[in-house]
């Protein structure tokens, strides 16, 4: 499909992606000039270090949105917090860290399946269903820990969060890149990818073609939960403790990253490469602001602004 395409065709096909990369380079220049200690490979490593959590969460978010049906997962932050704390509690018992990792992932899938059941079986609008589960998951993470970080992982576990190859963190190379590559291949090549786009474009038509819309959608919510749990895993390994507030604001940031990356909020349009670029863009912005000593509330405002602008731009491209 991509054979014989010149660069101009690629730019025409993914205008948003190239716009993003242009913006990203501008941003890097700006920070390199104005923020001391920003420039250097160490900073690139740091940006990637921070990117992993958002990237994994956003991948799930973007797949849920792509599949249409007003799909959205506001509970991702709650899942990251709750799966992470549950993992810490398991690791604190005698069973050790390895089973805790497995349980963390399964638990994420379980939480995702609750979203899936509410949306698919009970046909509750995803935005209100996942808002409710966000309350429950995030609240539970606070309640069972009393708001305090939970330690107790075995020492070797830290390598997953802190080990770097060259300057690049191992979890970015070993989790984010394969996950996005796989998602890219599935979305562009595999039947499942076609189904997801078809559902997002016209659900009724997809159903009449014989696509198991409910099953695919349920699976995507489970996958989103599992990816959030993977993000929790990385966060735990990095901090060597489970912070119950680690998922704070992730729903806003992951939505922004997905939509900024060119995913249509109405589903059926978008690709994961753009989403990864958007994640890197947002994290670069946040890291630069942090190094410049700007209060994190400003980051929240900026992310909110980007969220609105990205949909705004998409809507005007449409007409």
């Amino acid at each position, binding site marked *: 499909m991509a054979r014989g395409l010149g660069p101009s065709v690629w730019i025409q096909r993914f205008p948003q992606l190239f716009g993003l990369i242009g913006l990203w380079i501008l941003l890097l220049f700006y920070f390199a000039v104005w923020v001391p200690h920003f420039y250097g490979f160490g900073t690139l490593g740091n940006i990637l270090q921070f990117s992993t959590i958002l990237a994994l969460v956003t991948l799930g978010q973007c797949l849920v949105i792509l599949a249409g049906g007003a799909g959205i997962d506001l509970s991702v932050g709650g899942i990251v917090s709750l799966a992470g704390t549950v993992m810490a509690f398991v690791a604190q018992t005698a069973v050790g860290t390895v089973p805790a990792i497995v349980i963390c992932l399964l638990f994420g899938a379980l939480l995702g399946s609750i979203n899936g059941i509410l949306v698919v079986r009970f046909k509750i609008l995803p935005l209100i*269903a996942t808002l409710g589960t966000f*309350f429950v998951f995030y609240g539970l993470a606070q309640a069972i820990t009393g708001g305090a970080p939970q330690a107790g992982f075995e020492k070797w576990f830290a390598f997953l969060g802190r080990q770097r190859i060259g300057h690049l963190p191992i979890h970015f190379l070993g989790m984010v890149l394969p996950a996005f590559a796989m998602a890219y291949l599935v979305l562009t090549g595999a039947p499942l990818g076609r189904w997801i786009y078809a559902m997002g474009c016209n659900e009724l038509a997809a159903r009449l073609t014989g696509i198991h819309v409910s099953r695919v959608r349920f699976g995507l919510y489970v996958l989103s939960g599992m990816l959030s749990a993977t993000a929790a895993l990385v966060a735990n390994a990095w901090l060597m403790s489970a912070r119950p507030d680690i998922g704070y604001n992730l729903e806003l940031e992951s939505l922004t990253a997905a939509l900024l990356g060119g995913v249509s909020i109405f589903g059926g349009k978008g690709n994961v490469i753009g989403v990864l670029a958007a994640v890197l863009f947002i994290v670069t912005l946040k890291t630069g602001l942090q190094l410049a000593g700007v209060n994190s509330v400003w980051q929240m405002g900026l992310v909110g602004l980007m969220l609105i602008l990205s949909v705004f731009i998409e809507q005007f491209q449409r007409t």
Partner: protein
Amino acid sequence: MGPRELALLTACILALSVFTSCSPYFFTGGNFATIARNSVELMVIGLGMTLVLAIGGIDISLGAAMGVSAFFVGRSIELGFSPILIVMVGPLAGSVMGGVSAFTIIAGRIPPIIATLGLFGIYRALIFFLLGGRWLSGLEDVLGTVVKTSIFGVPLLSLQILALFLAGYVILRRTPLGVAILAIGGNEHSAHLAGIRIVRTKVFVYVTGGFLAGIAATYYVAQYRNVEMTVGGTVALDAIVAAVLGGATVLGGRVSLLGTALGVILVRMLQNGLLLIGVPSLWQQTIIGGLLISVLVIDAVTPQLKGRKPKAWQEA
């Protein structure tokens, strides 16, 4: 009063009797005053949220808009404006922010949840910017008459809220505007074909939502006489819960103002009562969320509500 309101009233009475039997401090005048005081902002914002839900929209930013308005109210007290002006500042600021919501949603054609989630982040940053990291505290008691006066033993504040709800009821059920709001919530396309002015009605609803957030902010400042970063933090989400408990649907076209009021009372009474019987406050969020999900599931499996309004993705 429909079956929904009756069920909610029963739930309120049930909660009341459980808490009374479990805690000696619950069934006291002082505690009821506390519950009432804590319900004020949620009542007003809940009314606004109900109108927004009626049109098939949602406004997550109402709580943050309340925070921004509260700053303007507090600042105008600090600057020594006349009381009449101070009372007008909050609703004015709120209406402007409601207008911004309406503009973003209508002109930008952005889904309400996305637009107002973004505005929520922006307003939070705005509050920080306006406050500059400090608190407005120890404000002069200029607005005391608004919240402390009683007429024949009935607090003036509760009469004001009652008046707001009555006005909401009249608009929603007794005027063409109300018909337009519910029609748009029911089916925007049909409403458009029927000649209803969509844009005008939506602007009215979102501006009213912001206006009410401004009123809530005025009440807040009048009661507590300080403004901090966290004013209005989660009140918008609580308002959605209260409205949905009361029988509103996020799909639009079906709401109950009485239901919302009862929902607010139930939410605040649960929060208060659970605290008094010794449940740590960290559990509140979980319990409110669980309540929301249970109601959504009950709504989904109740036959008369099923298939009420098939959307494109629910057909076939």
